[in-house]
């Protein structure tokens, strides 16, 4: 095993077109943010897939816990009234 210090890991997000969300595409190692963004350009946008790049240090990404997934998300489970299809509309009424 080498004693060399690894470059930190960055998570890369790409916006493919103006107006769209930045989407996670993968990760890479880079010494600093500038290098992360330049390397992300070289590996993730070789075919014009990108319009804008975000690089986030992987250690700064926090995530919900999959083992709590059920309990964590269940407040939304029984609230069908949050969807428009819950409300029957009288026939013939338009534009609603």
């Amino acid at each position, binding site marked *: *095993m*080498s004693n*060399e*210090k*690894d*470059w930190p*890991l960055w998570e890369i997000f790409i916006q493919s077109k103006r107006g769209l969300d930045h989407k996670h*595409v*993968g*990760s*890479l*190692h880079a*010494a*600093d943010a500038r*290098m992360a963004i330049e390397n992300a350009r*070289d*590996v*993730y946008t*070789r*075919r014009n897939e990108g319009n804008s790049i975000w690089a986030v240090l992987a250690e700064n990404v926090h*995530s919900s*816990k*999959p*083992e709590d997934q059920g309990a964590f998300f269940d407040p939304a489970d029984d609230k069908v009234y949050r969807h428009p299809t819950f409300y029957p509309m009288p026939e013939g009424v338009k534009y609603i």
Partner: protein
Amino acid sequence: MMDEKQAEEIFQAKVDAEQKIEPKDWMPAEYRKNLIRQISQHGHSEIVGMLPEGNWITRAPSLRRKTVLLAKVQDEAGHGLYLYSAAETLGIGRDELNDQLLTGKAKYSSIFNYPTISWADMGAVGWLVDGAAIMNQVMLCRTSYGPYARAMVRICKEESFHQRQGYEIMTVLSKGTAEQKAMAQDALDRWWWPSLMMFGPSDANSPHSAQSMKWKIKRQGNDELRQIFIDRTVQQSEYLGLKIPDPKLKWNEDTQHYDWGEIDWTEFFDVIKGNGPCNKERLTARQKAHADGAWVREAALAYAEKQAKKKAA
């Protein structure tokens, strides 16, 4: 707290229901181990796979061929990165992955231990080697581990030009002078059997196959994929007017597949063991590249630390 058996049942039910497994999900230790082995091997293959083609960048016969080959080799580097990035989500570090390759602990596809001795080999590698790899990669787009499947989708999108540019080289050579045609035939003769070996041992003798199918890491068996590859490639070779070096190759009306000869498995296992024509050369080249790049990695890190300090001050 769930016990191990319960957790495994939930895991298998997810897999059976075609739900992807994501990095933070519970997974059997063997599933994780298997995936790290397979994904890293796959990543190493992309990286080592740059060497036989890099060999021809400076000697490509035209500027067009040269730019195409450069783009292709650059893609392989990117594919290596996508795969390493997927492997890292399973908890293994990049330094460890790298070490495993450089010390010979991890394997890479044996096909890259064969030499590329003529320009026609660039054609045969793209057409056959990338062709065979694509068969496997298309299947892996549906693999059960999310990050691996996503990496594969990305790779497949990029990879199809690789096979086409190879076939284009073969087309030009096989429609060219007698000497060019002979070159193309010679390349096909040398690359045909090693390409078939890329699908791995027969399922009956493949140590990881059954478990990988159950976990849906693999979706199709080695023999099935190999047969589809043969069926598709024969027609492509006929168009080129080249002969596949297998006297037993024959269309079978009953099975609607080609019958074909026997792979030399002794050669296969011998190359895996390290006795192929280029095993040593490939590993030495990777070790040298890594050692030669050490100062760059150190300098970049030192610069980043200095800048960070300046900013903090």
